């Protein structure tokens, strides 16, 4: 059974790139959400194994969505996506239950490594 991943990012470009990287690697991308509301709804309906979550989202901060996700879908592993310079938010995200983070711009190798280890349950 392929692992199921939900991508949350407000940029279509970013989602497409992540989706291509993940599906090429054999993961099943079960949904793409562009904002916090969609993220929570889709996480509930698709029950993904892992969620990649952008730290900055239109209707909510990524952190609020993270808290909502941890409460609503505690089994889904969350990996944050952030850019350089957002270490403060990232640290807070880790404290709130995110397993790892990917720094944009990301390389395919790095994404697969982090997603893979998060799914296996290693520390990233």
């Amino acid at each position, binding site marked *: 059974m392929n692992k199921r991943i939900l991508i949350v990012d407000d940029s279509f470009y*970013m989602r497409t*790139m992540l989706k*291509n990287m993940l599906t090429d690697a054999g993961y099943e991308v079960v949904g793409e959400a562009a904002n916090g509301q969609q993220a929570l709804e889709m996480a509930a309906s698709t029950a993904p194994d892992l969620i990649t979550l952008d730290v*900055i989202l*239109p209707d909510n901060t990524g952190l609020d969505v993270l808290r909502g996700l941890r409460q609503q879908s505690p089994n889904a592993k969350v990996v944050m996506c952030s*850019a350089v310079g957002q270490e403060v938010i990232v640290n807070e995200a880790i404290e709130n239950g995110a397993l790892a983070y990917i720094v944009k711009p990301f390389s395919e190798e790095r994404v697969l490594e982090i997603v893979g280890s998060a799914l296996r349950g290693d520390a990233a």
Partner: protein
Amino acid sequence: MTAREQEYRELFMAEALEYYESMSRHLSELERTPDDVPALNELFRLMHNLKSNARAMGHTAIGEVAHSLETVFGLIRDRERAFAGPLVAVVFTGLDELGAMIRAVGADQPLPDAAALLDNLARVARGDEPVLPAPAPADAEAPAEEDARKLELSDLVYIQVRKLDKLLNLVGELVIDRDRILTLAEEIGHPALQATARHLFRISDDLQYSVMDVRLVGVGVLLNKFPRVVRDVATAEGKEVELSLGGQDVQIDRNVLQIMTDALLHLVRNGVSHGLEAPAEREAAGKPRVGQLRLLALTERDDVLIEVADDGPGIDTEAVRRKAVERGLATAELAATLDEQAVWAFLFEPGFSTAAQVTDISGRGVGLDVVKRALDSLGGQLRIASVLGQGTSFTLVLPTSIAVKGALLVELDGRPYAVPLLHTDTVLALRPDEFSVVGGLLLAHVQGQAVPVVPLRELLHAEGTEALPAADKTLLQGPQQVLVVNYNHRRLGLLVDQFLRQQNIVVKALSKPLDAIDLFGGVTLLGSGQVCLVLDVPALTRLFVARRA
């Protein structure tokens, strides 16, 4: 540039221009209401996305300007700087320059130099005075100003496949009506009407091809998913496999590819787990340790071929023949007479599997019949080639597009039925004495072969699981119209009332709840607006085999 790089570039451009326009709008709002928090948050978020995307695309100069602007927006949001004074001018200039840089990327031109802007942005971030140019005379600045404010709309639109499906259906119906009009014009014989009808013919032909073209994608979008699949299966099975891909740029209808996804996945998994030997076995047979698997797409006339080929042991035809008899798919007598192509076709029957060892990957009761079903639904075909000891190749023959199908229209009890040409073999008009009856089965003799014949009426109206009534030649009166259909190397004759004509049809899927009846592949609308059921030859053949007396 690869197709994917092209896609990324187009997505980046479309989104960057969209961000730029939204930011221009929000900046004007901010100018009116400097403490507009939602506008500030949006500016920060959009600039952040632009920065990330630009860096991912390798446009570092855009990334740098966006980063500096994002920093300034962050400071304003956190109330460390105010959106006032010279900062406003610097931010507006910054956004304009960013727009110019994005447009330059789109036009493949060198990016304008941003050193002065970056310096000013760093200054306002630190709280220092920026270096602003002395206001120039208004008319001297005007042309540049105008250029920077040009409104840009993206060259790309995103369309849901559902909308394209609808468009394709409409075009299909248009084509049917066009054919009808052309026929009527010929019948009426009015020269101006005929000329107009021929013109309509050409335009709608163009339209049809344009719509079909919009739906095409490179086969690569699917093939590129296989390296990982092969690696996983090979690891699980202890095989060593080198996968080669080819023909990723061959174009095919997106839905055709979608329908074939599972089938191809199955063929590839099967290719690794049954099609290739374990490394030690290969060495013992004098082959290289590493098995070769090839996934190749190519075009042949109007069709797209996707080939899955291995250099494994090949198909053991006699083993398949024995198994087919064991499974009751054929009697021993019949099986003995079949050529190897007909024997190989058994591989694609439901539940057939010759692997002695049930592997984790492809042995779980799901056979290659998945492939056959997917092909049947598209009206595609399968070619098999195999040499014992050298390898096997399966070739999927797929329509480039699912728009129109050639069909033969027949009439039964006053109603038209369409039979896809792909499954029709020949049509015959036979006298009753030209048939023979063997074992309750009506037989016609076609090109030296005895072909079973059944009235279509009986197949369509047979209920439950009871056997069809035994054939009685004396019931046949006058010349009989026989349509010989062909499915999976089996021929079957269908008695119909009359043959109407051959024409292109657009098949619409049956909607619920009638889609549960598998004898019909769908419906089509004739030029008259009349509803015509499309017969599903594979299902009719299966029904005949199951019900024959």
